[in-house]
Structures are given as C-alpha cells and as structure tokens.
C-alpha cells in the first residue's frame, strides 16, 4: 500500500504543476490495485478534492479566479453531475473502463500534439488540466 501513497504524491505534484492528473490514479488503482472501475473513480474524485484543494489555495495567492465564470458554470455543472453519476451507475463497468480509456487517449493526444501557445495558458507553455 505504501506505493499507493508514493504514486498519489507524484500524481498530485503533476496536478498541482498543472500538467494534469487526467485520472492516472484511476489507471493505477484499476490495474495494480485491481479495484473495480467505479470504486477507483470514486477514490479519484476524493483524491482530487484534497490535491486540487491544496493547489487552489497556493494558486489563489498568485492568480485571481474568474468568479463570474465560476458562478455561471456551476448550475450546468450541478445538473451534469447528477446526470453523469446516474449514468455511471447504470452503464456496465467494462464500458466505463473503455470510455475512460478514450478520455485518456483524447486528453493525452491533445497534450502531445497541440501547438505551443505564446502567452496563453500556463506559464512556460505548460499544458494544464484540473481533473
């Protein structure tokens, strides 16, 4: 189990750096720890609360958040969360695993093949995501 903590630490550093965690913890928990997909997803959500909560505090000391956008994104997000979690508990776990794989391929592909942007995005041209 100690290696779970080590992997979690490095995934959290990547998340805080802004290169993203993209659910890598889910891959670890399903393949190495042999947890069911849905259980791993639930743990990844909990993990995100702690890792991103900590990085948000540090980020907010340096960069202001767009409060208006946050307030306008939340209503749709709340509705989407209810729909998404309901779908997650209806769909077969094998399908969820495949969908998760497709999400990783898209996410990895975007990060790998996108052009560098000048003065856009994170400093020094990093590719960031937050969940």
């Amino acid at each position, binding site marked *: 189990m*100690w290696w779970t903590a080590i992997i979690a630490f490095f*995934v*959290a*550093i*990547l*998340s*805080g*750096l*802004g*290169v*993203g965690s*993209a659910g890598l913890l889910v*891959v670890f928990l399903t393949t190495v*720890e042999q947890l069911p997909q*849905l*259980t791993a*997803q*639930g*743990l*990844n959500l*909990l993990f995100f*609360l702690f*890792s991103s*909560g*900590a*990085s948000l505090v*540090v*980020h907010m000391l340096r*960069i202001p*958040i*767009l409060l208006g*956008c946050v307030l*306008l*994104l939340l209503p*749709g*997000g709340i509705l*989407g*969360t*209810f729909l*998404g*979690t309901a779908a*997650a*508990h209806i769909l077969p776990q094998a399908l969820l695993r*495949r*969908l*998760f*794989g*497709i999400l990783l391929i898209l996410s*990895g*592909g*975007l990060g790998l093949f996108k052009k560098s942007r000048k003065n856009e*995005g994170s*400093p020094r*041209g*990093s*590719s*960031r*995501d*937050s*969940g």
Partner: protein
Amino acid sequence: MKVHFLQILPLFVIGLGAGFLNGLLGAGGGILIVFGLRQLLKGRLKDPRAIYPTAIAVMLPLSLLSVWQYARAGSLELTHLGWLILPAIAGGAVGALLLHRLSVKALSRIFAAVVLVSGLVLVL
C-alpha cells in the same frame, strides 16, 4: 472581466458537459472547462492563467457533489483513502509551488504520452 449575457448559455453548456464527464468517469471535467474557457474568452483575459484556478474552483464543488452521489450509491470504498489524503495535499501544494520554478513543457509532453499509452491499454 465582465461576462457578456451571450456567454451565459455557452458557460451553462460547458458546465453541464464538465459535470457530466466528472460524474460519469470521475475525471476529465477540468479539461473541458479549460478548453471551453480558452475558446470563449480568447484574447479577453488580462492573465490567461486565471483559467486554471477558475476550473479548479468549479470542479471542487462538482467533485464533492459527485463523491456524495457515489457514496449514496454505495460505490465509495474508503479503504485506500488513508494512503491518499496526505500525499494528495502535500503533492498538490508542492506542485503549485514548483509551477513558477520549473519548466514544465517537457514534463507535460512526457505526461501526455503516458496518459495516451494508459488510455490505449484500457481500450485495447
């Protein structure tokens, strides 16, 4: 930065998609918000880096809601959580502190390649 009323619907839709993805797969909502806000606010932000803490600020309550829904459905297993909390907090803070000190471009590419291969392993 003021939000134009014509941006209300796109922001609702982006939020809907991010919440759905996060609830369905337990990850990925933040990517959608970052991508959506980049397109929607292109050239209008004094500091484009503001998109990232903004995405986190949206995804935190949505993830909390997802966790609650997973717990209600009995899908939350806390046996591994003890091994995750401290590394998550420490790693998240260390990563955010290192952000202005490290060149993360190469790291981003390596990470993206790892993610891509992980995805292929899951799908194939």
